[in-house]
């Protein structure tokens, strides 16, 4: 089987995965108790005199197969019918209405700037964690066995295994509360009605971005560093490195042109995977720093029991991870001519 067949297989796999996620997401929320409770609550509430209102709500939350607006008469849909509408909705990104705001979720996601905020935070921390992780990994591998090596390996293991929320709280405690270098949370100051001059704007935004981005960077660089180090060690022991050194090439050229290039394959695929996983990792960091992004939205959805938002966010995060996996597979297939297609 050639490259095309390999990609085809991966694509089929990805589609099956998306189906699985949709089914899982649907069935988890089917487990929710409460419909009967809500109905009896509505019926027993003396303030609600018009009992037919139940039908209206059932229609609003998509539980009806047929609905008569004049009488509020609702014919309940079977789970299978609901799954069909749900399935189409998921594929068309029509996630329904948020309980918190009453707006369509897709609109809430984009127009409130949540998506934008999350992309900024994740973009910055991904770029920095990749750069730091890869460069340090290369240097650490070139100085194998020294104190520099063990020191950085230990440090990255520690930062990798510390809970992010605790790291965030500590940074807020030290840098925001005691030293007042950075704000303790938020995306921009509350006092901003109109944006200030560009330079001030950028400086203040960078100040707000610093701590959450630092936490995410510290959390993610360790993985890149350890992986780069491992693959670099492997490629540094190859014969062509000895040849390159014998040719009299500078150490920098040997490391980056010869060793890193050949070691880059797992690093690239890992970077693609990491980008998919970031969104899940951002939930906690955004919550700690009150960063009004998608992750923080999930947190507030928990508090409000805003199930449509949770459902939509879980779906989107899962989609990101699945897409990242697919991209990583493609990269692996395209970049590595040695790969064996089963």
């Amino acid at each position, binding site marked *: 089987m050639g490259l095309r067949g390999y990609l085809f297989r991966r694509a089929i796999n990805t589609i*099956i*995965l998306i189906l*699985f*996620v949709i089914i*899982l*997401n649907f069935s*988890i*929320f089917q*487990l*929710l108790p409460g419909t009967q409770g809500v109905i009896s609550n509505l019926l027993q509430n003396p303030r609600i005199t018009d009992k037919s209102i139940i039908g209206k709500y059932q229609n609003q939350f998509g539980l009806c197969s047929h609905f008569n607006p004049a009488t509020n008469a609702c014919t309940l849909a079977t789970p299978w019918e609901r799954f069909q509408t749900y399935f189409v909705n998921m594929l068309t990104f029509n996630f329904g209405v948020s309980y918190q705001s009453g707006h369509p979720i897709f609109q809430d996601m984009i127009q409130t700037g949540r998506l934008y905020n999350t992309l900024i935070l994740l973009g910055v921390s991904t770029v920095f964690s990749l750069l730091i992780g890869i460069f340090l990994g290369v240097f650490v591998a070139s100085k194998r066995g020294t104190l520099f090596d063990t020191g950085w390996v230990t440090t990255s293991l*520690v930062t990798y*295994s*510390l*809970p992010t*929320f*605790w790291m965030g*709280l*500590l940074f*807020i*405690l030290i840098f925001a*509360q005691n030293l007042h270098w950075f704000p303790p949370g938020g995306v921009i100051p509350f006092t901003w009605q109109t944006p200030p001059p560009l330079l001030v704007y950028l400086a203040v935004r960078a100040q707000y971005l610093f701590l959450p981005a630092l936490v995410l960077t510290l959390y993610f660089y360790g993985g890149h560093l350890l992986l780069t180090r491992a693959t670099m060690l492997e490629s540094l022991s190859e014969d062509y490195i000895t040849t390159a050194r014998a040719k009299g090439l500078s150490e920098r050229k040997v490391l980056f042109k010869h060793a890193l290039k050949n070691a880059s394959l797992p690093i690239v695929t890992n970077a693609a995977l990491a980008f998919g*996983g970031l*969104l*899940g*990792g951002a*939930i*906690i960091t955004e*919550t*700690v720093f009150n960063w009004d992004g998608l992750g923080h939205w*999930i*947190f507030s959805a*928990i*508090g409000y*029991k805003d*199930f449509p938002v*949770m*459902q939509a*966010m*879980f779906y989107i*995060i*899962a989609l990101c*991870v*699945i897409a990242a*996996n697919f991209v990583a597979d493609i990269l692996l297939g395209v970049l590595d001519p040695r790969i064996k297609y089963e």
Partner: protein
Amino acid sequence: MSDKSRVPFILVRLKNFLRLLTKSRLAFSGMLLLIIFIVGAAAAPILTTSYPTEKVAAGLVPPAWTAYVFGATRYSQNIQFGGLAASTNTTGTGLSLQSTLAGPDAIDVHVNSTSGGTILIAKTLNYPYSASPLEFEGTVSIIPTGVSATRPANAIVFMERKDLGQYGPLWNSSLVTSGQQYHQELQSFGLEQRLGFVAGTNLGQVIFSGKGTYSLVLMLTLPQGPFQAEFVVTKLTMSLFGNSFGLLGSDAQGADIFSQLLYGARLSLMVGLVATGIGIGLGLVIGLMAGFLGKAVDEILMRFTDMMLVIPSLPLLIVLATVLGSSLLNIIIILGFLGWMGFARLVRSQVLSLRERPFIEAAKASGAGTGYILSRHIFPNIVGLTYVNLALSVPAAIVGEAALSFLGLGDNSAITWGKMLELANESHGGLAWWWVVPPGVGIALLSLAFILVGYSLDELFNPRLRRRR
């Protein structure tokens, strides 16, 4: 026969493990850490004096030792009034009194008077701190006998500082019913206006303005004329809550953080071990089935495993905890059911390689059934793997629970380390380092302990990793 041969085998492994502990510094420190945590968690009721939610101090005060470290001159600690005694006031004539102490907080007083008078039941305190207490809290409880509606005794509680004046009444009541218990909680909050101060005044600061001798007095005024009565003071206490407390300070509710930390270690260990146990059990069953049965079963199970591996775990945890409810048991089960995939793959690959070994073929040839081969030949060969994975996946479960608690999806009745961090984060007075640091250090160190033990077990069970001597 088989039992006899198995016991020495376990002993050999134990001996190997102990040797590893003495040889490898990392394994030793991991084991030591783990033992410290287990002992701390088990001995929590002995090591601490209060439950994690019990108010034993002023809200949000730093640890007591910070005063020495940072050289603070104005600090105070928790202190109580003591030295309960009863005496008569000289104004009464023909008043005789007989008292017997029944413990440090209780006293039994017999009174015989001809023309009224007052009795003082008092506790004293030599207040040694330059800083005032932040709060105080006490109880008075008295059972009179021999009083009646027509001839009641009057009870007043006040505090007094020598030469500086009285503060009271903290409580003022007519004792009219014989045999009834009169009970009052005395708290610094809500008493300001009764004592003639503006609402919101810090009474602790006003009353205990400096070093000196203070007394807490329960004054009983007897009715005129011949009177004979017994007063059983079942409780007369007063605790002052200083501006520092204990080993790790207090939380916003005035509960002991050290106690929360130790009881939290219990919960964390339980969550980690039980959830991982469930995960390892599931992984073992699925991995064994996939590896040994092979073919379609293998294909289906491994596809499912791969799908579960791809799905992001934290969002799934959040969704499940929200939908199923967030009791501790639920969280443990959810964590367990989301933690089996990696181990299942590992077991499967191990079984696939074991399956082809000659001893399995020999067992099959001698007529052994699937169950027998699995339990007697395959399982013993992956027990080591199980231990290693158990140790290595506990940290993930502990951190997972903490993350859920931090997001507000934890069990509200269980003060876990994650719950502590959530409460610390939500507290209005800003983040308090003595509240934020301990649970995080706990999580980090406990995870580290399990990882170190896991790696050393790996070295023990995995012959490829064993160092040549």
